């Protein structure tokens, strides 16, 4: 066994352990330590990714001393390693971009607690990506939820506590369903390791004796994870949670936390149940309908919103709808498009959140659209970044959003007519709606502020120079680069996703 193969285990353990360590550190040391650990894990994931691209073969890693049917396992292929690398990068950039706000909005004694949550969140995300054991996945789903709740409520205001409570209620509903589904699945198949369950499920499904419990358990798992990742009718907690938490939290929550659950769902589709059976049980059709609903309703809600942060949050509802719509197409192409959209949405949404906060800072901390007029001139870097993020979300070529929309359309065209037409129509409508609220904002921030507009807070807002916030600008530039790379060099990335999915099952 190569030494590199230990890296998934190392990275999970490292972030878990450093989470505990940061509790006794001072604010400054905790921040540096957290950066260091994040960079180390990013580098390890990158090395593993390159190694796996060379080997082109997934491997399983035995956790503890007991072999396959009983012990716990880690399984890594190119898709997992690439996802881990991507998640680490986004987390690093979101933390750098929101650092000043962390200092401003969180009490000094609590900043190291914030880094505990970040580390626990990262370790649970990595574990969700790498684990090959369903019950381990459940435990880390819970760790993910609890640390995400901590990220929301670290800024102590009525809004955030209420948002965290709502989030916990919805998440508990989701994890209750997930746990029950896993228990029934374990009961039917007698295994907890994903690969073993797949064999048993294929056997049981072919026999046809336990079809109702099997479909019910898969349904519970899928609905549970859909609730946790805020698919449309279950999105009520989302705007408050993303809108009022500190900016790093919002960026991390929208681009990573929900994506971790979605990645687990893809894993369940391909490795636990088998995609043919999932399609055959027609569970995907339900996801398809709710995905389409989410695409439209999320955008409509975003148009009605008068608060830039909440508008970006509602846009997440629409984008989660896109991802589930890709699942609903029921083809591998649809899943590839969804995975690409996970990447594209994660990079764009974190960019939008971080850029949005720069704009509100330049408008005297106000988040209302009326006060944002001309803020693109007051904070040029944030204005440019927001415009690029908006273009990407709408689907302008050169940026990542365009590629994911094209992938969705391609996947839809190869599908049957019943699914092709609604998909294409909803894609078109949703794109127009996206354009309405994003372009409205972009035009607003580049309209010179007339002198009649009164600034209620803090008098005339100061012009924020590019040089004043070096870290913030570096984070924005890196995010823009990531976005453009996803948009311009999409073919290797799509090939990577297709390869990864092939060795996923």
């Amino acid at each position: 066994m190569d030494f590199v193969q230990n890296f998934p285990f190392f990275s999970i353990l490292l972030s878990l352990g450093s989470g505990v360590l940061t509790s006794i550190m001072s604010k400054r040391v905790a921040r540096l330590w957290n950066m260091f650990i994040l960079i180390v894990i990013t580098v390890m994931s990158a090395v593993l990714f390159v190694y796996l691209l060379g080997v082109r073969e997934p491997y399983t890693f035995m956790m503890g001393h007991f072999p396959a049917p009983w012990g716990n396992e880690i399984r890594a292929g190119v898709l997992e390693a690439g996802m881990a690398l991507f998640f680490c990068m986004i987390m690093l950039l979101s933390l750098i971009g929101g650092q000043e706000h962390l200092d401003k909005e969180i009490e000094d004694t609590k900043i190291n607690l914030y880094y505990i949550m970040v580390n626990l969140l990262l370790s649970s995300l990595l574990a969700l990506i790498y684990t090959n054991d369903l019950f381990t996945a459940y435990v880390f789903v819970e760790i993910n939820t609890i640390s995400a709740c901590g990220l929301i409520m670290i800024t102590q205001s009525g809004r955030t506590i209420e948002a965290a409570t709502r989030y916990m209620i919805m998440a508990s509903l989701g994890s209750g369903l997930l746990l029950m589904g896993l228990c029934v699945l374990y009961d039917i198949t007698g295994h907890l390791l994903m690969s073993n369950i797949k064999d048993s499920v294929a056997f049981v499904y072919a026999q046809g004796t336990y079809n109702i419990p099997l479909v019910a358990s898969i349904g519970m798992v899928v609905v549970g994870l859909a609730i946790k990742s805020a698919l449309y009718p279950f999105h009520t907690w989302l705007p408050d949670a993303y809108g009022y938490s500190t900016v790093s939290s919002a960026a991390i929550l929208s681009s990573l936390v929900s994506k971790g659950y979605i990645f687990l769902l893809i894993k369940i589709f391909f490795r636990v149940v088998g995609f043919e059976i999932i399609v055959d049980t027609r569970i995907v059709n339900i996801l398809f309908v709710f995905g389409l609903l989410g695409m439209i309703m999320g955008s409509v809600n975003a148009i009605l919103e008068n608060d830039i942060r909440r508008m970006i949050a509602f846009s997440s509802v629409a984008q989660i709808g896109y991802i589930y719509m890709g699942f609903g197409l029921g083809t591998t192409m649809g899943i590839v498009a969804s995975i690409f959209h996970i990447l594209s949405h994660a990079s764009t949404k974190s960019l939008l959140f971080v850029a949005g906060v720069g704009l509100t800072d330049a408008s005297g901390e106000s988040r209302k659209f009326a006060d944002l007029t001309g803020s693109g001139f007051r904070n040029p870097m944030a204005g440019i970044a927001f415009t690029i993020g908006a273009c990407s979300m709408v689907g302008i070529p050169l940026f990542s959003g365009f590629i994911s929309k094209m992938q969705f359309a391609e996947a839809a065209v190869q599908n049957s007519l019943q699914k092709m037409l609604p998909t294409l129509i909803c894609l078109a409508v949703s794109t127009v709606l996206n354009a309405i609220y994003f372009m409205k904002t972009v035009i607003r921030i580049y309209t010179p502020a007339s002198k009649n507009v009164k600034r209620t807070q803090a008098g005339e807002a100061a012009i924020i120079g590019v040089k004043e916030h070096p870290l913030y600008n570096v984070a924005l530039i890196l995010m823009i680069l990531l976005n453009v790379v996803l948009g311009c060099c999409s073919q290797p990335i799509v090939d990577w996703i297709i390869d990864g999915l092939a060795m996923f099952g």
Partner: protein
Amino acid sequence: MGGNLFVNYGEAVAMILFGIGFSNLLLQKNLIKKIIGLNIMDTATYLFLAEKGYIAGRVAPIVVNGNTSVEKYINPVPSGLVLTGIVVSVSVTALMLSLTIRLYRRYHTLDMDEISTMLKKEDQ
């Protein structure tokens, strides 16, 4: 179908309890009642696992008198899962309760809807 339901009455009860807990967590306005619903839901899952793990007439999986025959013992894995699940649900409950305390101190009510209306008023 109906016969199976009667034989596996433990599992059936677990499922009914799960439904009760789930709807309580979803529909109750009072936060404490929501948390009670959460606990009922989790406990129902453990009941289900315990029912599934037990095989009538067998003993706890501890080797006595050197008898290592598989036929003698029950399946130990569900018990392990129940233990893990209990730990998870304890921590989730503790977190929910602490959030409830904070909300109560701020708004002097346990009603989620009232808290939302107060928040809306705060904004204006």
